[in-house]
Structures are given as C-alpha cells and as structure tokens.
C-alpha cells in the first residue's frame, strides 16, 4: 500500500485478501449486468433468428480454445499458490497465447461477417456489439495477464502474495463464462 499508512486497519477482523475478493466479486456482478443487457438486446431485436452464413466451425473452434485457456489460467493460479514460479509463468504464457488465438479467430469471424451481415444490418448490430464487447474484455484480460507475467518474471508473487494473479485469473474465467452464454445465444439458437 502506497496510500497513507492505515493505523487501524489491522484491527479489523477481515484480512486484506478477503476485502479484495469481496470488492472484486462485486465488480464482476456489476459487469455481468452489462453482458446481460447485451444478451437481452439480442433477443429483443432479433428474436431467435440466426443467419445461415455464420461460420459454425470457426465459432466452435474459438469456443474450445477459450475454454482451454480457462484450464491453463486455472493451472497458472494454482502453481503460484504452491510457489512453483516456472510453471506459473509457463501457464500464464499459454493462457495469453490461447487468448490471442481466440482474438485472431474473432478477427477472421468479423472479416467473414462483414461480407454477409455488416454492423448496419439487423443481425450485424447484435453480432458485432456482443462479440466486440466480449473481445474487448478478452483483450484487456490478455493485457492484464501480460502484466502478471512481466511482474512474475521479475520475482513478484508467491504463496502469500497471490492476489494479483488470482484476480486476473478470476477475471479471465468470468470472461470465459460470458462467452459460453454469448456463443449459445449467437451460434446455437435455432
């Protein structure tokens, strides 16, 4: 803490880690309302319509990649809580790689989508806003993982100091769960 020393803080019954976790979960609750709004918009504007041009193969592929990245993120968090720095770094890197592959997949998806349903068409509006908002979160997640990786390489974090990796990994899981809903709503509805 670089803010002025907090004389009383230690006297409070809740440890700092608990306080951080609580605030972080509140942030995720708040974020989930944003995605819920986008999800509701999809059905409000387009019902359950889905254009045939949507590339199912690509959609499934990037979904699998993103879900796999949740596994590597989980391993990365677990290894730092056990103090295994090399594996922590390795899996953080893997998560970043998979996240980046996902983003490249979205870019291909967008390229194809522009031919068939650009943003100024009915389905394009919901498709680009949902995938765009989600991809923005993935991108920010990759940046945060990069920060964790950079600091981890310089010797930061350990079993007693795992909150930053934990927070970033939680964020990553959250973004993955959002995609599970968005994928279903965009690709799987009849």
């Amino acid at each position, binding site marked *: 803490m*670089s*803010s*002025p*020393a*907090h*004389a*009383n*803080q*230690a*006297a*409070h*019954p*809740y440890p700092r880690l*608990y*306080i951080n976790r*609580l*605030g972080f979960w*509140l*942030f995720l*609750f*708040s*974020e989930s*309302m*944003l995605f819920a*709004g*986008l999800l509701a*918009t999809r059905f*409000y*504007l*387009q019902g359950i319509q889905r254009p045939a041009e949507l590339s199912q193969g690509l959609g499934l592929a990037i979904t699998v990649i993103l879900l796999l990245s949740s596994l590597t993120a989980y391993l990365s968090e677990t290894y730092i809580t056990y103090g295994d720095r090399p594996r922590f770094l390795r899996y953080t890197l893997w998560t970043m790689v998979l996240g980046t592959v996902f983003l490249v997949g979205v870019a291909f998806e967008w390229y194809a989508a522009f031919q068939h349903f650009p*943003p*100024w*068409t*009915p*389905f*394009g*509006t919901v498709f*680009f*806003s949902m995938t765009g908002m989600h991809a923005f979160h993935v991108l920010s997640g990759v940046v945060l993982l990069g*920060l964790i990786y*950079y*600091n981890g390489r*310089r010797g*930061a974090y350990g079993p007693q100091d795992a909150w930053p990796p934990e927070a970033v990994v939680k964020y990553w899981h959250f973004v993955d769960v959002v995609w599970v809903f968005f994928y279903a709503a965009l690709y799987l509805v009849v």
Partner: protein
Amino acid sequence: MKPVFKGLAWGAIGAALGVGLLVLLRLFFGLPGWKLEPAVVMAYLFGLSGWLLGVGVWDYWARGWLGLPNRPYTTTGWRRYFDFDTDHKVIGIQYGVLLVALFLIAGLLAMFMRYELMQPGRDLLNSAQYNRLMSLHGTTMIFVAVATIMGAFGNYLVPIMVGADDMAYPRLNALSFWFVPPVALLLVGAALAGGFDTGWTGYPPLAAVTKLGALFYNLAFLTIGFSSILGAINIITTVITMRAPGLSWGRLPVFVWSIIGTAILSLLFTQFIGLAMLMIILDRVAGFGFFDPARGGNPVLYQHVFWFYSHPAVYVMILPGFGIALEVISHFARKPLFAYRWAVAGMMGVVVLSAVVWAHHMFVAGMSEKLLIPFMVTTELISVPTGLVFLSALGTIWRGKLNLKTPMLFALAVIFNFLIGGITGVFLSDVPVDMHLQDTYFVVAHFHYTIVGGGIFGLFAGIYYWFPKITGRMYNERLGKIHFWWMFIAFNLTFLPMFWLGIHGMNRRIADYVPELGGLNRWVSLAAFVLGASFILFVYNMVRSWVRGEKAAANPWGARTLEWLIPSPPPLHNFPSVPEVVDDPYGYGVPGTVHARLSPSPSPASD
C-alpha cells in the same frame, strides 16, 4: 494544482494519440482519415485515460503494476483538494464542493427557462435555445442528484459512522472522484459545441442524429456511470468489512443503510445506462442499427435499457435523502428511531422493487399492452416499502421533543414534500391517468417534488447537520432558518401550481403554451425566481461560516453516532484507536447508555 495541470497535459496527449490511432485505423481500412464524431469519441476515451493517469493514477498507483516504486504522497494543506488524495474526508469535500457548484449553475439555467415561460409566446429564447437550456439543466441536475449525497456524505461519513479509518479501497475512491471533473467539462463542452436538445433522457431517433452536443451528453453519462459503479463497490465493501467491533447490522445508523441501498442500485443498474449510451454512440458513430428501424433496430429498446437504469436511479437520488431525514429526525426528536428494522426493510424493499417498475415510463411508448397492468401494479406496490419509511419518520416525531434547528426543519420538509411527490406518483403510475398526464407539467411537478423535495432537501438537511463536523465551524443558525423557510415556501409556491398546469395540458420541454395558462405561469416564474434567490443566502452563510464562523464543538447536537465522538473536523484516520460499539445508535432517553466508546488505550494492532 500541479496534478490538475499534469492531468490536463496528459489528457491532451491522450486525446492526440486517440485521434492519431483513429486516423491510422481508418486509413488502413481504406476510409478517409478524418471524421469528426469518431474522432471526438476516440479523443475523449484516450484523453480521459490520460487525464486519470496524469492526475495521480500513474504516480501513486499504476507504477506499481509495472513493478516500479510508487511516488510518495506528500501534498499537504489546501493543495490536497486538487490532488489524488486518498483520504475519504478530502474526497467527500471534493465531491461536495464540485457538485454543489454544478447544482447552483444548473439552477441558474432554470431561471432563464422560467423567464422564457413567464408569458405565452417567445421573448428571451427561441425554441431551439430553450430546448438546449432545458436539456442542460435536466442533465446536470440528474448528475447532481445521483452523485452528491453519495459522493459527499457517503464518502465523508460512512467510514466514520462504521468506525473505520478510511474506505476499503482509498485509491479507487480517489479515482472515482477524478472521473467527475471531466463530466463537468463535457457538459460545458456540450454547451459550446452547440448544445443538445434531447432532454436529459436522450431518446433516439433524435439523439442519434442531432447536434454534436448530444454525443458529449452520451460520453458524460458513461463517465459518471463509471464513477458511480466504482464508488458503489467501495461503499459496500467498506460497510461489510470495516465495521468496528460491536457494530452489528442491527446497530448500523440508518443513513448507512440508505447508502448501502443506494450503492446496490448503482452497482447493478448503472451498467444499463452505460449500455444505452454505448448503443447510441455505436449507432451514431459506427453506423450500427440498434434504434434505427431502417437498419432493423427499434427505438423502444432504448427506452427499456435507459429506464432499467434510470428508474432505479431515482431511488439512488431519494434513498440517501430518506436516510438523512430519518437520521436527523431521530437525533433532533431525542427519541429512538421508531421501527428501525421496518425502516431498513422498507429501504431494501424499495431497492428490490425498483428493478421491476421501469416500464411505467413507457405507457405511451407503444410497448406491448400486456405489460401495462403488471407495471402499474409493481409501481403502485412500491408505495408500501416507502410507506414504512414514512411511518418510521412519523412514529419518531410522534410525541418527540422536537428541536427545530435548521437540519431538522429540512428533514421534516423531506417528509412533507415527498408525501406530495409520492402521492402524485400514484396518479402517474395509473395507466389511464398517465395517458392524459404523460409529458405534461404534472410530471415536472411530480419529479421535482420527489427529487428536489426529497433528495435535495435531504442534501441540505445533511449539509447543515454535518457542517460543524466537516468544517469545524458553526454555521449561522438564524440565516440557516431564514434560508429554510425561504426555500421551502418558494419551492412549494413554484411547483404546486405546476400540477394544475399539467392537468390543463401544459406540455413539458416546450418553450410555449396556450395563452390561457399565462397568469399561473407568471406566478410560477416569480416564485421560481424567489426560490433561486434563496440560494444566495445559503452560499453566503456557508462561505462566511466556513471562513469566519465560530469554532464548533465536537458534538454540538448532542447526538450519539460515532462521527460526533471525535473532534470537529476529524483528524486523519478519524479515530485515535478502534472504537467499540456497545449499543443502539438511537437510544435517546435511556439513561447511562452510549452508542460507542473510544477506548483510551491505543489499539494493540496499530503498528
């Protein structure tokens, strides 16, 4: 002032980077490099980031993310108010002063509107100018009503009232304040960029095609939304985790409960105003089709998303007013707060029900008729929990020994005014009546009675009540009382006739009306000028007392809650050691009891 200039400089660099990035991207995709509105959006988003980093996030916070040592914070004295200070008391004063200034400016705009409406026909303003003035007045006042009590008193008092030394996240707290000056700049910028004429609600299709100023409005709402969400996270976490030993939920002051309710609403629903603004910006700037039927959109969607936030937002404006009113009434009636648990349950009931009432703003918007009756029922249902809060206030006043100081007068006025505002709300929630009253001055009178009569009168009750604690000086009681009666009478003379005007068909948001209503409008305008003038007295009293008022004692009101147990103004970190809460905050009349003890021995945990 240096951090502010640094913030502005970094903001300018950020804006330039944003525009540069946009031009490169557009050229890459084979588009002409320059387009005004996307450039404004990019310049703002990058400029905002630059501003926040420059004003202090970089020096005191973000350097740590890159493994660099953070700079030590050394600012002292008045300069702290212009710096990234993490003390919740400094932040509370920053919020309070900035937002009260905005309140006065927006009130001045209303004076011009009333001047125009003094007689039928056009005199001072043409209708386009009137619309812009009205929109700026409404939007600014909404920001003030949403953020002032939460930002100023929520920050200043909640940590003290729960016995903590600061908020759970002091730096996040500073960050949420520094989002607000850009909002003020955007509102000024909107006026300079030709204004916006959409009202504070900014409905499409107009909002997606009108002047550049409307884009500033969208960005301002997005920004203050960020600030609210961060503030809400901070408040909830603080109250849950930082309460002093013995301060169980049943002993929490009712003001803190009201702020928790407010924070829950801000946390969950503010995302929707962000979404609504984002959709408009995408429609406008990137050609999306959310609200344009020609591109498959539906303008009614905007109203759903907008009101899903904006109806809960009226409780964001009202609940803290209730909290302050109940708090002040108990302390000044020298009686335990009547039905404390029911009052808290009432406020939480409002929080829950507020999620399912939004479409009563849309009875004539063309949504499915099946939704009319359900939303009418849920809306009328909300008077039940509100009634609990009222019963608590009345039960506390009943046979109390009322000490009619200025804060108490304002608190009683909250109850009086909100009763009128609440009862007229029942008419508006009734579908057939609303079809007649929609978009008339009846609505204007109703929401001024609730938001000004409840929220802003509550704010003034709070300002007078906590003025001695916050400034360490006493305000002039006689001027305070004169201000109260002046404001209270003028307020009622201004807004009560508007109900009648509305029933007789005077439309809101229009610069003109049928000549038959001229007489009453002249009356309303004159009363409004008197109301406006009352704030001169208020500002005089506040400024003079803050500079030269007599020194205030630690507990001038003889109140029991924690903030009155420490000196005025409170020292850094508030308490000499962790206080111990032993009893109810409102146990007046029970001899020998106290709410809390400041244990004399220093806490063993303090390093």
